[in-house]
């Protein structure tokens, strides 16, 4: 597969902080790669360095095989960027905003008109064409922000936390749009601190923390790292310490947590863990509301690797 981006040994320091610490990774054509990490882990800094907006102390960036630089217009022509903050003109309508930013890439007016229409359809703003940004809800505004970044049909797209503070409907619309862009052939780099999104969206996930890459791979590969097999949660309103001790001694049980409301039993391995726990509870005449079993999440992976939660 063709490499679209090659990042080698990238290190970026702000005055006192080392925001990105010697990271290397490649992105292949047609992939959606997720950069996952908590706030401040260096995702935006990485993206802005790749885009030649930031100067960096060490490392090299190649895009489409060429050493990236601010004057590489032919490469830039094929890149679309959606920044973390909404960047649109309040004085321009939805349609005008998209047309303006698209016009920085596409000279031909009739082509541009068609592209702008496509972008509006992609993000579902057809009914809001004549609206001004101030009249749009947070979610719709984010969609406009995305449309402005991708209307010129770039081959490589950077999306920096495009779903922050967005309602579920807009979020779904945005995620669908991104999948559609990929199906049309775009390669996508997507940063977020929402693990659910990268699981749905990304072919490959790079987990960052404190400026370093701490793990990367597919969702399944990463979950291998979690070192746990199953997590069973039970809603119980009352539980004595004695019973908790008994549960701890059950087969395969790794860890037991009870917060007075929910009992979480973590298993390292084994089968039928859920059934066995249900048996145990009914034998001991313990009443419970709800019980369910989960596979480990990327949060568990993060917890295992860093000792802290992904969500702050």
């Amino acid at each position: 597969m063709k490499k679209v981006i090659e990042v080698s040994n990238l290190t970026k320091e702000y005055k006192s902080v080392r925001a990105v610490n010697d990271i290397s990774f490649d992105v292949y054509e047609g992939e959606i790669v997720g950069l996952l990490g908590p706030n401040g882990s260096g995702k935006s800094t990485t993206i802005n360095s790749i885009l030649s907006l930031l100067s960096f102390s060490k490392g090299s960036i190649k895009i489409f095989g060429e050493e990236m630089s601010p004057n590489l217009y032919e490469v830039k022509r094929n890149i679309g960027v959606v920044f973390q903050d909404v960047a649109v003109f309040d004085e321009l309508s939805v349609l005008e905003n998209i047309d303006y930013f698209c016009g920085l890439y596409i000279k031909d007016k009739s082509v541009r008109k068609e592209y702008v229409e496509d972008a509006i359809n992609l993000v579902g703003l057809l009914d809001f064409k004549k609206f001004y940004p101030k009249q749009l809800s947070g979610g719709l505004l984010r969609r406009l922000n995305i449309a402005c970044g991708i209307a010129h049909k770039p081959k490589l797209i950077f999306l920096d936390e495009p779903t922050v503070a967005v309602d579920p409907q807009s979020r779904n619309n945005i995620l669908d749009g991104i999948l559609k862009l990929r199906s049309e052939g775009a390669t996508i780099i997507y940063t977020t601190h929402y693990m659910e999104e990268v699981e749905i969206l990304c072919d490959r996930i790079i987990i960052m923390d404190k400026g370093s890459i701490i793990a990367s791979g597919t969702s399944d590969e990463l979950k291998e790292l979690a070192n746990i097999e199953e997590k069973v949660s039970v809603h119980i309103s009352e539980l004595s310490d004695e019973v908790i001790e008994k549960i701890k001694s059950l087969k395969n049980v790794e860890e037991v947590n009870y917060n007075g409301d929910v009992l979480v039993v973590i298993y390292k391995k084994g089968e039928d863990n859920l059934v066995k726990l249900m048996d145990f509870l009914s034998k001991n005449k313990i009443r419970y509301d709800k019980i369910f079993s989960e596979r480990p999440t990327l949060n568990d992976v993060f917890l295992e690797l860093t000792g802290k939660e992904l969500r702050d």
Partner: protein
Amino acid sequence: MFIHNFKYSLKTLFKDKILIFWTFMFPIILGTLFSLAFSNIEDSEKLKVIDIAVVDNGNVVFKNVFDSLSDEDSDDRLFNVRYVSEEEAIKLLESEKITGYVLAQVKPKVVVSNNGINETVLKYVVDEIIEYQSIVSNFLASSMHEIRLEDIQMSEFVLDIYSEVSKKMNEEVNIHDISSENLSYTMIEFYTLIAMTCLYGGIFAVVSINNTLANMSFKGARVSVSPTSKKIVILSRLLASYVIQLLGLVILFLFTIFVLDVDYGNDLSLVVLTSLVGSLAGLSLGVFVSSIFKSSENTKTSILIAFTMAGCFLSGMMGITMKYVVDSKAPILNKINPAAMITDAFYSLYYFTTRDRFWFNIISLVIFSVILIVVSIFSLRRQRYDSI
């Protein structure tokens, strides 16, 4: 690409209500307030005759002018003049019998003890006479082959010619007749108003540059990651800023000329030139503030507005007295104050027939602009930033 940016720039700037308020509405509101306030002042000041003394040290022109200005039969009577010795004049001033006195010598001098409208009028008149004298002397020099004014005054014979010529000049050269009717010291306030509008126009440049630099805004970052050269975006946006700035100025000119009766003199092309150069200074100021300071658009706009207001105040927006204080006590301020340069350019266009002072102001404005632009270019040229 240039046209695309230019067009959208016009659109966004025009629709920015705050910008349009400061550059289009505010000057008109202020101008209206001025004219309301000054119409009262002028009416009450008009009839007052100012008591002064002249120490006659042989400057004929001075005597002539003051004589005619203190003619008791004239409606335009401005002064009540006494011709006295210097010692007497000092005494009169100390006892506040006179506003000030004039040493009418080769290099005339005005002595006053306060700063007020009367003192300002006196100084103004003397300035005017000096200006007038230099015209006469130039005229003589060209017609009588390099005879200096001092030499002329030496001989009685030439003195006669001199006063003859003076009379002739009075008819031929359209020097402003100094009368209480024409001596509108509020004119200067309106000139500062134009200066203010020129400089406020810099707000458009502030916004344009802010939206173009990646380290200032995400809109700027969008420009930076696009394949359009930053130079083109900056130039097209600044051109749009300049066009809107000038439009605001045209509206203000029309308003002040037709509604407020402000007089800008007879040389329209130089008035236009002053506006163009003045607006350029505003534009440069905007570019400078926007590219050098790393802060929000609002902060930058406030910096520009504060600078402009302070500049206009020092150039006489709240009264011509301030202008005289600065001119005499701290002339260095005028060298860095574009509002003073613009105001003074209009002032010299209206009051003086020679153009030296005018061109000095225009050149100062150009230098001011060039320096700011050059400094800004270092910052504008950056492509990668340490932090954004």
